[in-house]
């Protein structure tokens, strides 16, 4: 990502016989005003909207989280320091959520990237027929709403009549005692990770594919002249050359996987908007979630850097 821009020297071109330096006429002043203010006017909408509806609520949430806060009746609000956080850290719910988040994160991310890599490798054949079709088809899961996906996967993983358990029973797994995908920790992680992976593997594959296609082909040609086989080429050329793409990719994956946090965000709404006297506590939930996301991003970054190296 480069932030530098090309700067062209001000071209002083004589044009249609007009004088190259206009005098201090009204038009000249207007032009200077235009040059000076336009850039700021153009970027202003973003900063205004973000300031009012992004930054301000964020800071306000932090402030609320240090108070006993009632959204409706604000006269009895009182500063209580970190008590809301202490209360949150004492609940079993919070630690469950933390464990779930990180558990699913590992369960979802690793297979997702491996599968995406495999899929990208399949898609990366110049002689492949109907390229656009395959790309579209693997990307389609990403276009669905998470609500719809959750409904469908909830049913696919149902205990008694779900398709997954039915398929497993065909090969003799859990025939008498079907797996409870919704109840147990491990099985529910697998179920939810499957859903997340279903939605994101194709997207990741396309990003990796883009990275693969940017690798110069001579590298492969010369490697094979040196006698390197297909796998050797994959390990020694494709993977190392994909490193930057991997890191970009993983950053965006994490944003998308925010679905994993839905239980926590719902808990936050229950403890603020549905129950207005607990808004301070809800705000503490919000900030804890934010910090958790930052931690997870960091862990993710380290993990990927290690794996790919």
């Amino acid at each position: 990502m480069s932030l530098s821009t090309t700067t062209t020297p001000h071209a002083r071109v004589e044009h249609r016989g007009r004088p190259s330096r206009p005098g201090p006429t009204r038009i000249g002043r207007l032009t200077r005003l235009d040059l000076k203010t336009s850039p700021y006017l153009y970027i202003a909408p973003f900063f205004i909207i973000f300031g009012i509806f992004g930054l301000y609520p964020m800071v306000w949430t932090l402030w609320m989280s240090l108070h006993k806060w009632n959204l409706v009746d604000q006269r009895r609000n009182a500063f209580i320091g970190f008590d809301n956080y202490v209360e949150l850290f004492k609940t079993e719910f919070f630690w469950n959520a933390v464990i779930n988040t990180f558990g699913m994160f590992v369960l979802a991310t690793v297979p997702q990237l491996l599968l995406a890599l495999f899929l990208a490798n399949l898609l990366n054949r110049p002689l492949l027929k109907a390229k656009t079709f395959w790309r579209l088809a693997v990307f389609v899961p990403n276009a669905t709403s998470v609500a719809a996906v959750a409904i469908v996967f909830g049913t696919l993983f149902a205990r008694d009549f779900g398709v997954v358990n039915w398929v497993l029973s065909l090969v003799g797994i859990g025939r008498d005692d079907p797996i409870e995908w919704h109840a147990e920790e491990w099985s529910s992680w697998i179920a939810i990770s499957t859903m997340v992976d279903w939605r994101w593997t194709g997207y990741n594959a396309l990003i990796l594919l883009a990275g693969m296609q940017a690798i110069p082909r001579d590298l492969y040609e010369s490697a094979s002249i040196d006698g390197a086989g297909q796998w050797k080429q994959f390990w020694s050329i494709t993977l190392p050359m994909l490193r930057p793409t991997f890191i970009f990719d993983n950053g965006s994956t994490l944003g998308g996987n925010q679905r994993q946090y839905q239980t926590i965000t719902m808990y936050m709404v229950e403890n603020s908007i549905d129950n207005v006297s607990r808004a301070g506590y809800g705000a503490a939930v919000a900030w804890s979630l934010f910090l958790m996301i930052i931690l997870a991003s960091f862990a993710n970054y380290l993990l990927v850097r290690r794996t790919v190296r």
Partner: protein
Amino acid sequence: MTMLNASRRMWRASPLTYIGLILAVLISIFPFYFMFVIGTRTNDQIHDTPPPFTPSGNFGDNFGRVVDIKEVYFWGGLLNSLIVCVTITVSVLITSTLAGFAFAKLKFKGRNFLLLAVLATMMVPTQLGIIPLYGMFQDLGLFDNLLAVIIPFLTSAFGVFMMRQYASSAVSDELIEAARVDGCSTLRIYWSVVLPALRPAAGVLGLLIFMENWNSFLWPYAILQENPTIQVSLYHITRQFYTDYSMVFAATSVATIPLVLVFIVFGRQIIGGLMEGAVKA
């Protein structure tokens, strides 16, 4: 020639490649297909062993039940989502192309710092500010009003950044300079030089923004009640009638159709833009 064989093999698509891809496509499509199948069945049939895998003729009846329940506002939700998404998309496109143009091609004090600030805001999850936002919009008297789910999303950091990246390479400095010498105002340059050049990327951005907002749930769920968007309406359907699978799935199928349509028509561009962005960024 023989020495290049190993390399050649890597580029060729073998039958195994196609088998792998077909498998991937089947897995991608199956949940959609299954959703539609259940939506066309009677509710008892979902309990069959093996589960039903082919559509049947009960869709009209199932969907009829969805529209009949007044409290879930299904049609209203669909219309609201359309209004919200179109408004947001248009606004994001205008503000992002303007800001992207400024960041890429105009010189002003603090440009790099401000651009970094835009990037930093992308880290902040929208859920973080929901509680005060709820208070703000209630004070403004906008509870249950579509403006509440539109206004905060009228601009997008991602959009600004994407347009900035694209404008740096797609808009030529010479053209802008020539237009200036001709006496064009900055706004005029935006309109007749920059915007046409940004069109392909702006199209991709528009589709991504549309999809994102069509699927957004938490904030609309918090602030809208009797005037919901389609995701909120779907949520109410699932929560109140979770045992009526065929109805829930009929509703979900219909709610997914607009996205699938957008996808079929513009999917090629979306993918192109996405892959281009991945390498450029």
